[in-house]
């Protein structure tokens, strides 16, 4: 009879980083090779930008002072947040597909860091969103979008939107692992997203909404994020006019990002263990 005597082996941190990078690359490779996914993740956000700007832009008044009243300047910060949140649904979809195809079983039989399956997913969203942002901001620039408070603040806004999207990837991981099939993940993922995105300040000022909706719209995280990113890009005099307090907004945004991640990352890990066990 053989007995195991060797000490327990663990995956080192640097190996775990390598594994996460490999899984991240693999997850994004699928996007690059499946035309409908490229379309969904890159062309669609740009299309939203064009449609909302040219179709609704003329009708929507944002109440910003002259000189900053171009709708594109209202829209870009909001649509960055929307893109990050939509992008997070790829995590829900990808995880369910991997579960169904036995890919996660394969990963779990390898001497790799187990965390890499989930972090490789969420980070893949982050990487893809960063790429899409570059494209969107370029198109936005051609459409007349300008950032008025310097590069550093603009980049801070972009970074906050990306991090918010990252926290949402954990929400989507939880949902995907709970519903288990790609079809269900697709619809269940968007269920919380649509009301959050449209009942927010992404496209129109909250003040233009019916009163019963304003309470929700003004305080929900997506409005906080859209306002924060906006406050870092539009002219400073417009801030006062819109009643946006940049400092407070940044803290609120960070609080939402931390809170959502702190709640949903452990939930996602729990669902993962349930789904694979």
């Amino acid at each position, binding site marked *: *009879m*053989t*007995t*195991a005597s*060797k*000490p*327990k*082996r*663990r*995956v080192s941190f640097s*190996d775990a980083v*390598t*594994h996460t990078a*490999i899984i991240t690359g*693999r997850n994004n*490779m*699928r996007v690059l*090779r*499946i035309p409908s996914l490229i379309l969904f993740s890159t062309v669609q956000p740009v299309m939203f930008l064009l449609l909302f700007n040219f179709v609704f832009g003329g009708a929507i008044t944002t109440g910003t002072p002259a000189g900053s009243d171009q709708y594109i300047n209202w829209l870009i910060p909001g649509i960055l947040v929307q893109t990050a949140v939509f992008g997070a649904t790829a995590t829900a979809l990808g995880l369910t597909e991997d*579960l*169904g*195809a*036995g*890919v996660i*079983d*394969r*990963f*779990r*039989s*390898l*001497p*790799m860091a187990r965390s890499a399956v989930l972090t490789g997913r969420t980070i893949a969203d982050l990487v893809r969103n960063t790429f899409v942002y570059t494209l969107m901001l370029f198109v936005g620039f051609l459409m007349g979008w300008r950032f008025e408070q310097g590069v550093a603040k603009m980049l801070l806004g972009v970074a906050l939107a990306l991090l918010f999207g990252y926290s949402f990837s954990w929400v989507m991981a939880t949902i995907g692992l709970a519903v*288990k099939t790609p079809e269900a993940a697709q619809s269940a993922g968007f269920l919380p997203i649509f009301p959050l995105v449209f009942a927010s300040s992404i496209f129109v000022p909250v003040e233009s909404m019916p009163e019963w909706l304003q309470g929700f719209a003004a305080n929900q995280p997506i409005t906080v994020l859209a306002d924060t990113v906006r406050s870092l890009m539009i002219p400073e005099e417009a801030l006062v006019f819109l009643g946006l307090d940049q400092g407070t907004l940044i803290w609120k945004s960070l609080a939402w990002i931390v809170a959502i991640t702190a709640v949903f990352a452990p939930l996602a890990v729990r669902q993962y263990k349930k*789904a*694979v*066990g």
Partner: protein
Amino acid sequence: MSAVVATDIVKTFGEVTALDGVSLEFEEGIVYGLLGPNGAGKTTLIRVLATLLKPDSGSAIVAGTDVVADPVGARHKIGLAGQSAAVDEFLTGRENVEMVGRLYNLPKKEAKRQADDVLERINLTDSADRNVGTYSGGMRRRLDVAASMVGRPQVLFLDEPTTGIDPGSRIHLWDLIEDLVDGGTTVLLTTQYLDEADQLAARIGVIDHGRLIAEGTSDELKARLGGDVVEIHVEETDRASAAAVLTRVAGEDPTGERLALSIPAPDGSRTLTAVVRELDAASVEPKDIALRKPTLDDVFLTLTGHKADSEGEPESAASRGRGRR
């Protein structure tokens, strides 16, 4: 050294007892065939041995490493190809294998070299740079097995490797498995196909309702039947009278499908002669009559009381506790 030593493994999913105290031990360098119907517990046992599932109780040592106490250590020594071909459709065959190699912590160059080597061995070199989406089911299965080989595992677990693939690919996989074992790898495979276990496995374990109900070489299992079998094929109209004849000769009811009936033939050709004589007396003219060696089908029927391909509870419910797959 033993490749696998499993002792009294129990695994339940809620109400369902998937493994009900399985003990199993076999040596290195062979194919061990785990035979059983759907829902018997084959997949659950593989998942426990491949560190995917923790057993409720019992212990399992694979290639000298305790899979419960040191799963990461065990994963360095094992390879797994599960029931569905776990390959990425949108990557090329080569990329799939390379990725698995890198997840075994092989340096990039070494992973490439290994991938080339493995692809060559499974005869996929020509298709290696095509997206797996264009592969046939058999090619995917072979690629999946290739991916499980890339870390040069000592023990390879193949869960129903030939289920649902064409006969050509099946033979190809059999060759590959024999090749691997010649190279010193130990293979534990599950199958519902009796001929597959017969063909490949040096030793066979028969599993049913979460228990190992018989074990041995193919010949040993067949010997349990007490030797040869007389099998007759009859017309529908003769079925009842033929069955009566067989019952009279054997002293027990014949087994088999509708128009093919068989009884044990402990006295060999003497039993055959007796059957022929009795059939003649009853004016039953069989379409075919033969004295043959028992197949694993006969073994299974004798051991479990049901045929190997009859549906038990679905494997998914038993092995995963929920309805996936």
